[in-house]
């Protein structure tokens, strides 16, 4: 389908990644998943996702660091950060580095979908 939002989901928790990826796909998103920043970079280069959902804790690179890289290369691409460990500082840091939003796990799927859609619409409107 051409009207699907292309979504990249990056998280090192394999179960969460696969389950959430499938549920989002069932809800009409064109979902790509990546367990590491390395995998995510390849997808970013070749698949042109329109929204990225990124876990703050990743094995090969700190999620915030990766966020910075993404924003440098694709400044208009909205990135929603996910974190399993709420921390005021990491939340602020995420927004400071250009994250569109910051969600805490466990995240409600409906809420995530809304945030992805809003992020997508706003990025189109800019």
């Amino acid at each position: 389908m051409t009207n699907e939002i292309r979504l990249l989901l990056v998280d090192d928790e394999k179960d969460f990644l696969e389950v959430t990826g499938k549920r989002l796909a069932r809800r009409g998103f064109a979902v790509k998943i990546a367990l590491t920043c390395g995998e995510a970079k390849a997808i970013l280069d070749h698949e042109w996702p329109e929204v990225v959902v990124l876990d703050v804790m990743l094995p090969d690179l700190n999620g915030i660091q990766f966020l910075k890289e993404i924003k440098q290369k694709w400044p208009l691409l909205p990135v929603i950060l996910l974190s399993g460990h709420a921390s005021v500082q990491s939340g602020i840091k995420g927004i400071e580095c250009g994250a569109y939003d910051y969600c805490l796990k466990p995240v409600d799927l409906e809420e995530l979908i809304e945030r992805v859609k809003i992020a997508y619409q706003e990025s189109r409107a800019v």
Partner: protein
Amino acid sequence: MLRLITALRRRFFPEHHGDPQELQNAFRNHYLHFRGLLTANNNALELMAEAEQMLASGRPFGMAFVRGNCTALSVNVYKMIKHLTALADNGGYQRLPSRFKEISGRIEAILDRQPTIGAGPHILGMDQIDRTSIDLVGEKMANLGEIRNRVGLTTPDGFVITATAAGEFMAGGELQTEINRQLKSLDIDNLEELYTISAAVQQLISVAPLPEELETQIQRAYFQLADRASKEVLVAMRSSALGEDGMRVSFAGQYRTQLNVAPEFLGRTYKEILAGKYKSQAIVYRQQRGYRHQDVVMCVGCLAMVEATVSGVTYSRPPGDSRGNGVLIHAVRGLASGAVDGDVPHELWRVARYAPHPVLASPTGITGPALLSPDRLAELAEVAVRLEAHFGSPQDIEWSYDATGRLFLLQSRPLGEAESGALVTPPTADGDQPPPLLAGGATVSPGAACGVVFKVASSLDLLRFPPGGVLVVKSPYPDWAVLVNRASAIVSETGQAAAHLATVAREFGVPALFGVADAFTTLGDGQLVTVDASGRRVHPGRVESLLSEQPAKPALMRGSPIEQLLREVLAQITPLNLTNPASPYFRASACETLHDLTRFCHEKAVQEMFRFGDRHGFDKRSARQLVVETPFQWWVINLDDGFAEERQPDKHFINLSDIRSTPMLALWQGMTAIPWAGPPPVDLGGLGSIIFQSTRNPRLDPAVRSGLTARNYFLVAKNFCNLSVRLGYHLALAEANLSEYLTESYISFQFKGGAADNHRRLLRVNLLGDILAVFDFRVEIKGDTLTARIEKRPREYLEKRLMVLGYLLIHTRQIDMVMADEEVRDQYRVKILADLATILPNHEPLAIGTNHDQ
């Protein structure tokens, strides 16, 4: 001349001469930031309300809630600052980020604060301990030392491995950091996850090496103990938690006690007892009672084993009856642990509190000689009365007699507050209840509850226990306590009031009936029953007559460390100091709380939208007067797509039919559905008071006044409307976003001021609060300022509420002048609700609510 006029016009009425498309893009960009700011503002206010409601409800919450709320709140406030800075596009508001970082830094510091463990020795002998040692040895051992060294009664010889030692061990090798990491996101309602993480954390502690110096010190203390006993002794290692004092909570049985420990196992057992802090039921218990894990530090008492012949538990007064007469004594053969674990046959005696302590009630059904002679019963009662007098409150005492007949005291602690009121409820009178399935047993926690039977015989069963189920067990093992926040009632075949599970049930207000023979076989899984613990019966189905008038569940969080921490954090978040935009103190540097920052950002964002117009000739192009026949003038500014697309013939006016803003139209519908009858006839008192107020304060300035609010402005987009109304002497702000996404949808309303005296203004504000609460607004009233909000509801639902607001905006103006008393207010309430019922014909029947906060 013409050139001069043109120059003057340009000077005073600047117009944008750039590319209209560019201007449109710039404006759209501005509007996007404005909308983003409004959404973040909305989220932030909702998060603040959520935290305040949680605090007010008394419901249990953990650090995960506090951290999650603070993080989400900080993120949203920071987003507001980012959006506002982008809106200003002139480098303004440079002080905002630093103010924000200072406030969020203070919040983070409170969240991350660690309890300080005092420096001190790693080991203290029992002869060195009394109540003043509590910060080193924990409450249990401090009390035991007090009994030994201040009251002069016999306790086992031994020593305590102190909080300092535990603190150093847990801090070493980042052990505590790793444990905290594992526990941070634990969901205690997921029992499988709870067990897994609990086991992993206990394993981490068990395998961590003890510092060599501590190991040596423990060994040395042990050999000194053996020297004093002149033989090799086995010790009982008992947890003595630090950090629970100041609360009448009973962590009884949550932690480990290991009996008969030989010297070579001291180190290993010490670690096991430290690990016991993370037993699954202890984790659940702390969460329910509002304790952070680091608030509790485990000290460990090492006491020479008493070769007990008879042991037991004494209550210096009957539980639940702090003025009651009689000492209750539970006795079992052998060690005291049998009395607490709950499934060993026991004898229950009631003995008079006065000398010579005659027996008031004897155990029934004893075959053979009783475990306790009258002399011993008298001795136990005398000790109980003495300890109660020494500690100043009824006591729960553990004891043992050794083979020589010597009485050793093992523990004394206050009978928990939750025990008050327990067990005294009279049995419920027979009504029209169905015949019971079971009858008898002992009420160990009073009350009645209904639920589906779920029998638990193993840890595996625990995992499948349904929330709200009736827990049915053969014996009340302490391990079942993990279900106490899920079970509606507990029924056990064995056990009595001294069992740990009974203590916890009383604390949590869960009705519990113990000693019900055949309960496990009679009751079937999935069967709906009503457990009448007070009446000592279990009925089939739901018996409403028993369930009505149940006492409220105890507020378990009151005064707990996490509750106090949330209060402290909220002090940095919710107070609003910036109320008056016209004040010279309405500036970034004056923001003291996150609420101040949101208020500041919101106000300035609206101003920036106007300023954008000023800079680009936008107000002249877009601020149109609404063509309507009302006594007031209304101005509408189109932010994006709020007007019909066809070109307007007149740049100064706009017809209602050309408005496309759904929320504005809904408001307008409410404002005009019933014509305003004009000012109410003013009673002389009201008029006099207005004249008086006018004399005293000629400006009669509502707190939220700024240049923008001098006129009545609608700022509109298709889904958005912000209305500032200044009608007469009061100021009202209504704002709504009716997004297709629930997370973005809201209505907010603020109302302040009035012309009449304070009493009349408050009555009007109360009336508004009442009406809005009827329509599910969350209302807050402080002084004569009312704020009301609704979030995350569907569009049609919010449209109805906007009509209500519209109606109230028009029809409550000036009625403060006639608000002489409650009677007048009530008359208006009836009239307003009747009017609203005609405006909203399909609305559900209106109930008159009064559930606003004051």
